[in-house]
């Protein structure tokens, strides 16, 4: 799950908590009717007794569904985010468009980036139209590497890539992670 997905989940849950807590407070304070009624009124108890065995089955199925939801959430939460696969698009003659898998292209650019001094890991993502792709790059730099040199090398690699592919990147976004390990003197 991405950070945005976690944030959305907890925003929705927070809204639900505010709504539920606010409604319960309003009933308890007498702003809404029903303050004198017990939390579990006669209605649900009657439904449980009269609806047996289907009411039991419904609650058991509800429990299983909740458990399954928890299991799915746990799996998603524990999954290490894998490689994002970017997709390039090529507009067709008619109304449609062709989706172009970009793994081969990103692999080529990554290999070129890894040849730059100081770059020991590179990830590339390409999105958008083939002729004007958005290029997203993440590079990990050795602590001893000068950022200026690495920037020049990465920019040159992207220019070579664009020349080979015959495209003009619409947008280049580079994130450099500078490793913390001691510089080797």
């Amino acid at each position, binding site marked *: *799950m991405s*950070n945005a997905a*976690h*944030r959305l*989940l*907890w*925003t929705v*849950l*927070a*809204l*639900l*908590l*505010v*709504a*539920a*807590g*606010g409604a*319960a*407070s309003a009933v*308890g*304070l*007498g702003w809404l009717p*029903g*303050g*004198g*009624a*017990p*939390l*579990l009124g006669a209605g649900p108890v009657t439904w449980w007794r009269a609806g*047996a065995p289907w009411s*039991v089955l419904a*609650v*058991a*199925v*509800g*429990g*299983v569904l*909740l*458990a*399954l*939801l*928890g*299991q799915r*959430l*746990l799996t998603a*939460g*524990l999954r290490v985010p894998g490689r994002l696969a970017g997709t390039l698009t090529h507009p067709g003659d008619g109304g449609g468009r062709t989706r172009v898998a970009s793994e081969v292209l990103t692999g080529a650019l990554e290999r070129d980036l890894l040849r730059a001094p100081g770059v020991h890991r590179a990830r590339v993502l390409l999105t958008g139209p083939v002729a004007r792709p958005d290029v997203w790059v993440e590079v990990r730099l050795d*602590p001893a590497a*000068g*950022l200026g040199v690495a*920037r020049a090398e990465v920019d040159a690699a992207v220019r070579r890539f664009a020349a080979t592919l015959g495209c003009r990147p619409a*947008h*280049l*976004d*580079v*994130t*450099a*992670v*500078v490793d*913390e390990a001691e510089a080797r003197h």
Partner: protein
Amino acid sequence: MRTVNRIATLLLAVALLTGGALLAIGALLAAAGRPGPLVHRWYATLTTIRWQDAPVRAVAAGVTLLGVVMLVAQLRRWQPVRLRLAEQDGWHLHRRSVERRLARAARAVPSVRRARVRVRRHGDTWRPRVTATGDPAARGDVEFALRQELDRLAAPRPGPIEVRLVPARRAT
């Protein structure tokens, strides 16, 4: 906040998994005429306590407050993961890695031991804030070391560097 969210999601998942399984088992046991003591206690409480009772109102107020706190925490602006290097060239540095590099540079100053650095960006300038243990007289050296490191990182126009040096407590 990102780490807190991830941990909270895992806890929620475990709670849903356990609660759902217990609910299903409890329902089946109740159908078989063998409801556990927990179900009996909950049933007795839920059918007697009223919405206007003080404990219910307190719990409702707590839930509302928790929801508001969570909402504020999610909706406020989070510190960006990356620091922009220049206005238009699309280059960014990973904030945590910069902070670790700067902390290492501060620790390299003689007499400075522990160091923690936070970098904030104001417009086009970076404003590092250093909290370190060491001789307060080394403030200038720490600032110099950080400026050198920022220069190596090609940081855009470093702003004022805030250095807080706490003298180390002597061993008794």
